[in-house]
């Protein structure tokens, strides 16, 4: 019980839970665990089954792509208050990147099977979770486009 209370407090502090009905928070907490990763440790690897997602409480997670014969390329970092992983929502439910702790990372993880089951049976919860994931995905897409655009390159004036 004490642990559940703690998890509840931790979830409440995370921006993801802002405005979330307390009853729904309690439902989510039933699928949550508090995790800690040392610097260098992988949270997940590309191709692995996406069985979780993470709300980063503190630390920096590097989202990386690996190519044979080349060093890992960090495409993004996610830190305090960030949301990591949406492959659990999209078939075929496999991670498309590696995620590695760049520093000591503390995160709340959610068991996707457990949460998905609750979302299926409680559409309000399902909607609230999706409502929070869609902007995360939209921001990532926007950011990826901006990165491709080369924001810092000098303007070409004709």
């Amino acid at each position, binding site marked *: 019980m004490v642990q559940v209370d703690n998890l509840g407090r931790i979830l409440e502090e995370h921006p993801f839970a802002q405005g979330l009905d307390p009853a729904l928070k309690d439902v989510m907490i039933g699928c949550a665990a508090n995790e800690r990763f040392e610097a260098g440790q992988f949270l997940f690897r590309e191709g692995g089954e996406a069985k979780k997602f993470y709300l980063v409480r503190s630390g*920096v997670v*590097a*989202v990386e792509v690996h190519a044979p014969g080349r*060093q890992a*390329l*960090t*495409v*993004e*970092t996610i*830190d*305090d*208050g960030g949301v990591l992983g949406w492959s659990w929502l999209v078939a075929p439910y496999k991670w498309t990147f590696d995620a590695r702790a*760049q*520093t000591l990372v503390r995160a709340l993880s959610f068991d996707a099977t457990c949460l998905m089951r609750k979302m299926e049976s409680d559409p309000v919860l399902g909607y609230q979770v999706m409502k929070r994931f869609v902007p995360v995905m939209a*921001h990532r897409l926007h*950011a990826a486009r*901006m*990165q491709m*655009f*080369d*924001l*810092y*390159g*000098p*303007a070409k*004036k004709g």
Partner: protein
Amino acid sequence: MSAALQQADPMDVRPFRIEKIRKELSDVFTMELVPEGGGSFAFKPGQFNMIYSFGAGEVPISISGDPADPSKLIHTIRRVGAATEAIGNLSEGMAVGIRGPFGNPWPVEEVFGSDLVILAGGLGLAPLRPAIYMALAHRQRFGKVVLLYGSRSPSEILFPKELEKWRGRFDTKVRVTVDRAEPGWSGHVGVVTKLVKGAGFDPLHTVAFVCGPEIMMRYGIQALEDSGIDRTGIYVSMERNMKCGIGLCGHCQWGAPFVCKDGPVFRFDEVADAFKVREL
């Protein structure tokens, strides 16, 4: 401004000797200049000079030095074309012509009492550096001071030693991000707008200074507004081709305002409409 160097006629070009040149990046260098014949050069943060390189013409360049130290005039320049190449090819001991300082400055003193967010991209850190020096010299006059800087890659970060030094202060938050990481980089990766979230300022009492390529400023301003900062609290520094630098020739006209005399620093709400026009 120092009486000795107060410019009587803004079209007069005064000779300055290049005392020191420092390579910052592969195509960016910093010059320290001193007036031929002595004297000092007072300026406000955000102002610019017209730098004349004999035979190659004149270009507007922001002052990147410390306004509290008028003994040196400092400019940080990227080689992009004929004039900036010509200036970049000069050596220590040689001379350039200077007209200035011109333009509307960052309103550092006017915003004492607020939280200050400085959002810079790429070379845009250079025109902001004098404002940073001044804000940190008066650190106790601000609430939070946050510097958010984005660069294409780690090797293209401007003034890395100073960024580290500022980050080492206990009273200033410095966040740096790059679009593309390189081996050995353990900092943030992602667009600079991402740094705004979680920067920990109070949006209702925050003033933001923004400088960088226009596209970066557009998205940067959007992120600042999304965070709750009113557009009357956002200042931007603009660049347009210039000739006279003093509001006479019309070269730098940007909608109604002239960038040389009404800017280069503008309050965003006053230029928001011009910002939306693609080819102005």
